[in-house]
C-alpha cells in the first residue's frame, strides 16, 4: 500500500496540514503536496478508469506527463473536469471526484468493455459502424456518445476571472530546473532582459531528487544560491506556476500562469495568459521517462521509476513497501537506492541489459540489493493494484522463472528529451542511437524573420544525460541566447559538476522481446486511450505505414496527455512491425499547447459586459432608459422601436410610422458614417469613388450617391454634401463607416498615392438627429425662438437637398435638408458632446407638436413606402445599381469610376438579370421575407425554376396593407402581372402578388418639398 513516510519530503511542510476530499472521503495532506502525493499518502492508488476499457487507473508519473490520474476538480461554479492530480497543488478544502465510471470507482459496470477487449481492437469503430447509414445517427452515435468521455461537463458559469498580460523581453527561458537556472545565470550576466518560467511552484526541477554536487555544494544549496543571485539581477524576471504553452513565429511565446488555482476565491485572476515577444528562447524543458511495455504495465502501482523516487524524496510518500525496479538504463538504480535509503524494500532490480556494470548498479549491489541482469517482467499480478510480478528472460518469450511478491513496480525505459517547444516552430530532431531517443538537431533550429535561429535547447532538453553535461550545455545555451539577443559576451565561468561514468542503456520496446500475442495484448502504450502494443501492430498489418495515420487509427497519443509517455514507444513498435528504422518512421507533430490550458485564459478579460465592445451613441442611455428594444447594427446598438407599456413591438412600430407621417418623429442617426474628403484632387477622387458625378456638386448642396466595388457590385450609399471648394462630406451606412473609410484609404495609399486627398472619419465627432414630419420645421424654429439660434430653416433659405451651418437654439449645428422617409425632414448634426442635450431639447420643445422618437424598423418601413433601397436588403454583394433601377445615379459622362468597367461585362448587361419592382399581395397580406417567386418548368437539376425573390417586405401602417420590393425576371416590363410565391411554412399555400411601382407613397415628393 502507498503511505506517508515518517520522515522526508523536501517540498512539504508537515506543520501545515491541508484537508481535502476524494469521492466524498475526507483526507489529509500537507502544504507543498500535489494532489497526487496527498492521495498516495492516504493509500488512494486507484484514481480513475481508462477511456475505452474502463481499466483501473492509478497515477503513473509525477508531473505534466501524467496520462492516468485525472479527476473532476472542485464543484459548482469552480468545477473542472480532467485535472491532472500530479500538477494540481493541494489546498485546504479541495474537493475532487474520480471520472469515467458508473456506479462507482471500485465497481464499474463499464469494465465489461475490458472483458470484450479482444473484440474492440484498433479501428473497431471504423470497421463496425459503416452501415446502414441511418443506424449511425440513431443507434451507434448515441451509444458511443454515452459511453465516451472522461470528466463531466461543467453545468455552472465559471466564477473566476482571467486576464492577459503582454510582455516584451530579450530572452525567455522555458523551465526552471538546474538547466534553466544555469541558462538564466548566463543570459542574466550578459545584461539581456530575461524571463524564466517554471511550470511547478518550486525551482530546480528533478536534479535535487537525483542527487549530485554542483560547484562543491549539494544541488539544493546550489539552487538556493543561484536563485538568490538571479533575484538580485534587475534584468531577470522569475515566475513559477507558469508553463510555456507554445512557441510561435517571430519569437512569440504563450505563457500560462496558474495564479490562483491553489487559492481559489482569493480575488486574484485564476489564470493569466502571458503573450510574450522575445528575441531568443531557451528551452530547458528536461526529459520525460519512458514506460516499459510488459504485460500488465497499466495496473495501479506500476509507475515510472523517477516518479517513485520523486514521491519519496519530494513528498515523503512511498508507493509500496516492496518495490520491484525494472530498467534498461542506469538511472533506474537511483530509485532502488532511494527506496533502500528510505528504509523500504527492493526485492530485485531487473535490468533488461545482459549485464549491469555501471557505478549505480555496483552501488545497488553494495547496498545489498539483488540485481538481475538480462531479466524482464513476464507479467504483473493484480487487478486494482499490484500484488507481484513474474520474472523471465528479456531475450526469451516470457516463461516465468520466478514470482516475486511486491506492491509496486518502478519502471524505467530510458529518457526522451521534451522537444515540444523546439518543434512547435519547425525545429528538427535527430535520432540518438546511444540514448534511443529523438533530440533536437542544433543544426536545424527554428528560424525567425531574419533566417537566424531563435530557439536554443539547454541541458537534458538537448539530450545531455548527466548533471555535468547538463550544466555545461545549459550555461552555453544561456550565453549564446544572451549574446544573440543583444547582450554582452561574458567570460565568467558557469556552474560545474563532476563527470559521471555510466553504462550505456539498451533500447527495449517490448518486454520480453519475444512476447507472444497474449502478452502483447496486455502491454499498454497509451494508458488513457487504451492503446496496446497489439493495436499498433494490427494497424501496421492492415497497411498503416504513416505514423500520423496510425496515430489517428489507433488513437495512440490522442488523449489529453497528447502521448507524452506513449509517443516514442508507440512509434518504436510501429517501426519494428514495419521492419524499418525508427528515424524512418519519424514522429507525429508536436503542437501547442504543451498541456491543455483553460478556455478562460484564452478568453482573458472578454466575458460578460466586456465580451465585446458595444458602441453607444451620445443618446444611448436615453434610449435604454426609455425602454427601447435595441438591435445590433455592426457593433452599435440601435433602438428598433420604443414600445410603451402594454404595447407590442409591432404596435409600437406602427404608431411610430403614423406619428412621424402625421406629426413629428425623432431618429438617433448618429451611427451614420461621416467621412470628410479634402484636397485639390478630392473632386477627381470623389468621381472615382461614386458612380455619379460628385465633382460638380455645388457648395452648400447635397446629392445622393452610390459606391460600387471594383467588380461593379453596389457596396454602399449615402448623401454627399459639398462643404467648400475642396471639401466633401460623405455619409455612409451605419455599418459601412469604417469599411468605406478603409476602402478610401486603400485606394489613396495603394493606387492613387500621388493624388492630393486626405480623408478623416468624423462619424463619432457628431451626434445626428433626424427631425422628421410635418412639424419638423416648427420644432426647430421653436428652439431658435427659445434660445436665439440664428439658422434660417425656411423652405426658401434651406431648400431640399441643401445644408447650412449655424446655431439652432443653443446648439452648434449643421442642418441637412434630406429625407429618407418622404416627409419634411432635417438631419441635424451637433458635436457629440452636445448630442444628449440637443435630443432632450427637441423632445421638450416638440411636446406640443406630438413628438415621438422612432426606431430603425419605422425608418425601414418609411423608406420602403417611398421605394428607397437599403444596402443589405436590396443588395447582397451580387446586385449592381442597374438591377435596382438606379441608372439615373450612374454617370455616363465620366471616363471612369470604380465598377464602371465591371458593369460593362456581358453578365452585368444581361437583360435576364432580375430587376427591382414593387410587389403588392392580392389579399393585402405581408409576403414572407426572402420568399421566392416560381416560374414554369424545372431547371437542369430538376428544381422548380425561380423568377424572383423578395428583398424587403413590411406591413405599411400608412397604406394599411403589406408592401414589398423584390428582384424579378423582366420585372419592370411586367407591371401589373401577378406572380406566385409558394410558402415554406408547411401550409402548402401560394401567395399571389402583383408587380407594381416600388414607390408606394407620395411619388411626386410633395410631402418632403414643403
Amino acid at each position, binding site marked *: 500500500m502507498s503511505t506517508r513516510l515518517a520522515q522526508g519530503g523536501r517540498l512539504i511542510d508537515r506543520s501545515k496540514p491541508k484537508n481535502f476530499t476524494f469521492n466524498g472521503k475526507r483526507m489529509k495532506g500537507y502544504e507543498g503536496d500535489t494532489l497526487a502525493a496527498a492521495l498516495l499518502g492516504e493509500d488512494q492508488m486507484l484514481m480513475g478508469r481508462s477511456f475505452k476499457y474502463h481499466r483501473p487507473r492509478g497515477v503513473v508519473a509525477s508531473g505534466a506527463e501524467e496520462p492516468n490520474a485525472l479527476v473532476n476538480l472542485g464543484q459548482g461554479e469552480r468545477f473542472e473536469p480532467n485535472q491532472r492530480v500530479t500538477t494540481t497543488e493541494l489546498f485546504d478544502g479541495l474537493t475532487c471526484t474520480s471520472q469515467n465510471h458508473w456506479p462507482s470507482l471500485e465497481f464499474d459496470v463499464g469494465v465489461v468493455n475490458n472483458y470484450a477487449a479482444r473484440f474492440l481492437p484498433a479501428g473497431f469503430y471504423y470497421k463496425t459502424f459503416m452501415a446502414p447509414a441511418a443506424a449511425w445517427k440513431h443507434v451507434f452515435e448515441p451509444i458511443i456518445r454515452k459511453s465516451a468521455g472522461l470528466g463531466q461537463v461543467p453545468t455552472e458559469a465559471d466564477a473566476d*476571472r482571467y*486576464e*492577459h*498580460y*503582454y*510582455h*516584451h523581453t530579450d530572452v525567455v527561458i522555458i523551465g526552471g530546473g538546474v538547466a534553466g537556472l544555469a541558462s538564466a545565470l548566463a543570459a542574466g550576466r550578459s545584461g539581456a532582459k530575461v524571463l524564466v518560467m517554471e511550470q511547478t511552484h518550486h525551482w530546480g526541477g528533478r536534479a535535487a531528487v537525483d542527487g549530485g554536487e554542483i560547484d562543491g555544494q549539494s544541488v539544493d544549496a546550489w539552487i538556493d544560491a543561484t536563485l538568490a543571485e538571479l533575484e538580485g539581477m534587475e534584468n531577470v524576471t522569475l515566475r513559477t506556476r507558469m508553463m510555456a504553452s507554445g512557441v510561435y513565429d517571430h519569437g512569440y511565446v504563450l505563457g500560462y500562469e496558474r495564479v490562483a488555482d491553489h487559492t481559489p476565491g*482569493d*480575488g*486574484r*485572476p485564476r489564470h*493569466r495568459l502571458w*503573450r510574450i*515577444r522575445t528575441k531568443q528562447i531557451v528551452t530547458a524543458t528536461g526529459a520525460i521517462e519512458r514506460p516499459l511495455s510488459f504485460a500488465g504495465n497499466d495496473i495501479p502501482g506500476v509507475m515510472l521509476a523517477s516518479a517513485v523516487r520523486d514521491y519519496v524524496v519530494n513528498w515523503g510518500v512511498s508507493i509500496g513497501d516492496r518495490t520491484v525496479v525494472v530498467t534498461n538504463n542506469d538511472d533506474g538504480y537511483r530509485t532502488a537506492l532511494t527506496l533502500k535509503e528510505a528504509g523500504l524494500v527492493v526485492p530485485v532490480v531487473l535490468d533488461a541489459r545482459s549485464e549491469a556494470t555501471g557505478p549505480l548498479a555496483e552501488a545497488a549491489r553494495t547496498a545489498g540489493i539483488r540485481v538481475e541482469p538480462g531479466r524482464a517482467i513476464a507479467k504483473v499480478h493484480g487487478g486494482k493494484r499490484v500484488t507481484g510480478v513474474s520474472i523471465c528472460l528479456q531475450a526469451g518469450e516470457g516463461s516465468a522463472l520466478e514470482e516475486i511478491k511486491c506492491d509496486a513496480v518502478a519502471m524505467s525505459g530510458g529518457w526522451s528529451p521534451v522537444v515540444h517547444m523546439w518543434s512547435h516552430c519547425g525545429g528538427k530532431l535527430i535520432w540518438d542511437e546511444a540514448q534511443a531517443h529523438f533530440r533536437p538537431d542544433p543544426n536545424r533550429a527554428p528560424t525567425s524573420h531574419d533566417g537566424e535561429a531563435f530557439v536554443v535547447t539547454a541541458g537534458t532538453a538537448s539530450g545531455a544525460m548527466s548533471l555535468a553535461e547538463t550544466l555545461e550545455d545549459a550555461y552555453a545555451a544561456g550565453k549564446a541566447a544572451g549574446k544573440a539577443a543583444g547582450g554582452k559576451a561574458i567570460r565568467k565561468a558557469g556552474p560545474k559538476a563532476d563527470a559521471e561514468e555510466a553504462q550505456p542503456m539498451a533500447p527495449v520496446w517490448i518486454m520480453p522481446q519475444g512476447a507472444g500475442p497474449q502478452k502483447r495484448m496486455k502491454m499498454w502504450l497509451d494508458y488513457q486511450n487504451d492503446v496496446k502494443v497489439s493495436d499498433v501492430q494490427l494497424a501496421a498489418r492492415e497497411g498503416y505505414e504513416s505514423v500520423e495515420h496510425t496515430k489517428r487509427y489507433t488513437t495512440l497519443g490522442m488523449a489529453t496527455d497528447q502521448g507524452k509517455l506513449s509517443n516514442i514507444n508507440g512509434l518504436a513498435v510501429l517501426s519494428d512491425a514495419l521492419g524499418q528504422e525508427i528515424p524512418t518512421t519519424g514522429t507525429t507533430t508536436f503542437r501547442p499547447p504543451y498541456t491543455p490550458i483553460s478556455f478562460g485564459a484564452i478568453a*482573458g*478579460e*472578454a466575458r460578460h*459586459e*466586456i465580451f*465585446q*465592445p*458595444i*458602441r*453607444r*451613441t*451620445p443618446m444611448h442611455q436615453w434610449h435604454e432608459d426609455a425602454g427601447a428594444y435595441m438591435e445590433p447594427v455592426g*457593433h*452599435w446598438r440601435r433602438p428598433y422601436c420604443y414600445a410603451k407599456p402594454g404595447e407590442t413591438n409591432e404596435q409600437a412600430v406602427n404608431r411610430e410610422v403614423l406619428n412621424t407621417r402625421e406629426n413629428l418623429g425623432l431618429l438617433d442617426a448618429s451611427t451614420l458614417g461621416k467621412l*470628410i474628403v*479634402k*484636397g*485639390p484632387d478630392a473632386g477627381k477622387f470623389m468621381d472615382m469613388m461614386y458612380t455619379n458625378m460628385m465633382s460638380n456638386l455645388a457648395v452648400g448642396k447635397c446629392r445622393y450617391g452610390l459606391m460600387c466595388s471594383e467588380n461593379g457590385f453596389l457596396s454602399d450609399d449615402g448623401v454627399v454634401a459639398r462643404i467648400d471648394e475642396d471639401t466633401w462630406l460623405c455619409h455612409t451606412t451605419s455599418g459601412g463607416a469604417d469599411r468605406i473609410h478603409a476602402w478610401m484609404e486603400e485606394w489613396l495609399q495603394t493606387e492613387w498615392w500621388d493624388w*492630393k486627398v*486626405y*480623408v*478623416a472619419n*468624423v*462619424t*463619432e*465627432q*457628431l451626434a445626428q438627429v433626424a427631425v422628421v414630419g410635418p412639424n419638423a420645421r416648427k420644432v426647430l424654429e421653436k428652439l431658435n425662438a427659445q434660445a436665439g439660434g440664428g439658422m434660417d430653416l425656411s423652405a426658401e433659405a434651406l431648400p431640399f437637398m441643401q445644408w447650412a451651418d449655424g446655431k439652432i437654439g*443653443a*446648439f*452648434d449645428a449643421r442642418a441637412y435638408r434630406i429625407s429618407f422617409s418622404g416627409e419634411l425632414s432635417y438631419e441635424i448634426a451637433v*458635436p*457629440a*458632446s*452636445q448630442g*444628449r*442635450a*440637443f435630443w432632450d431639447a427637441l423632445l421638450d420643445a416638440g411636446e406640443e407638436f406630438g413628438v415621438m422618437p422612432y426606431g430603425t424598423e419605422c425608418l425601414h418601413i418609411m423608406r420602403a413606402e417611398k421605394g428607397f433601397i437599403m444596402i443589405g436588403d436590396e443588395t447582397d454583394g451580387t446586385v449592381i445599381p442597374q438591377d435596382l433601377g438606379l441608372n439615373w445615379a450612374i454617370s455616363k459622362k465620366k471616363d471612369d469610376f470604380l465598377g464602371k468597367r465591371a458593369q460593362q461585362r456581358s453578365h452585368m448587361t444581361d437583360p435576364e438579370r432580375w430587376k427591382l419592382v414593387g410587389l403588392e399581395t392580392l389579399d393585402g397580406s405581408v409576403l414572407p421575407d426572402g420568399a421566392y417567386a416560381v416560374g414554369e418548368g424545372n431547371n437542369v437539376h430538376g428544381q422548380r425554376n425561380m423568377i424572383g425573390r423578395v428583398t424587403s417586405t413590411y406591413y405599411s401602417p400608412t397604406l394599411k396593407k403589406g408592401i414589398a420590393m423584390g428582384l424579378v425576371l423582366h420585372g419592370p416590363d411586367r407591371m401589373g402581372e401577378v406572380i406566385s410565391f409558394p410558402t415554406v411554412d408547411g401550409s402548402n399555400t401560394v401567395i399571389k402578388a402583383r408587380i407594381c411601382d416600388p414607390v408606394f407613397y407620395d411619388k411626386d415628393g410633395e410631402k418632403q418639398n414643403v
Partner: protein
Amino acid sequence: MSNAVSALQGASFDGYCKVEEAGLTGMITLRGDLASKGVAKAVKAVTGAAMPGQGEVTEGAKGRVGWMSPDELLLIVDHAEAAAIVEAATKSLGDEHSLVVNVSDARAVYRVKGASCREVIAKLTPADTSVMQPGMLRRTRIAQIPAAFYLEDDETAVLVCFRSVAQYAFDILKDAAQPGGEVF
C-alpha cells in the same frame, strides 16, 4: 457650451491604479506633410509645441502634439478652444495641402494613475509599455478597440479611444486595475 458633456462625465475607479475619465478634451486631427515648414509653423502657432518625431508627443504652452502616422498629427488642446484652433491652423496652412478637423467629441480620454500604470495597460495592449517614457506616444489597441496612449509623468498614463466605446474602455481598464490582479 454648457450643454457639452464627455462620454462618461468623469467616471472613476480606484483599483491598484486609479482609472478616471479625463472629461472634455480638445482634440484635432491634422493631416499633411509632416516634413513641411508650413505644418511645423502651424503646429507651433496653435500649441506652442515643436513637431514630434515618430512615436513622440511634444508639449507646448497651449497643448500637446502627438505623432500618429507619417502624415497625421493629433493636437491635444483645451476643449473650448478646439474649434478656434482648427480655424487658426487651417488659416496658417493656407494653400498647403492639409486637413485640419476637430475630433474632440469623437474621443474619450482616460488617465491611469499609479506606480503600476504601465502594468495595467500591458494587460490590454500588445505595445511594450515597459519602455514607455514621458514624451513617447503609442498608437495601438487595447483589448478589442483602437487606442493611443502616452505618459504625462512616470505614474500617469493618458489613454485615448473612440467615444462610442468609452464605456467598454473604462470597463476593461477597471478590470485590469482590479486589486488582486497585480502581476509584480
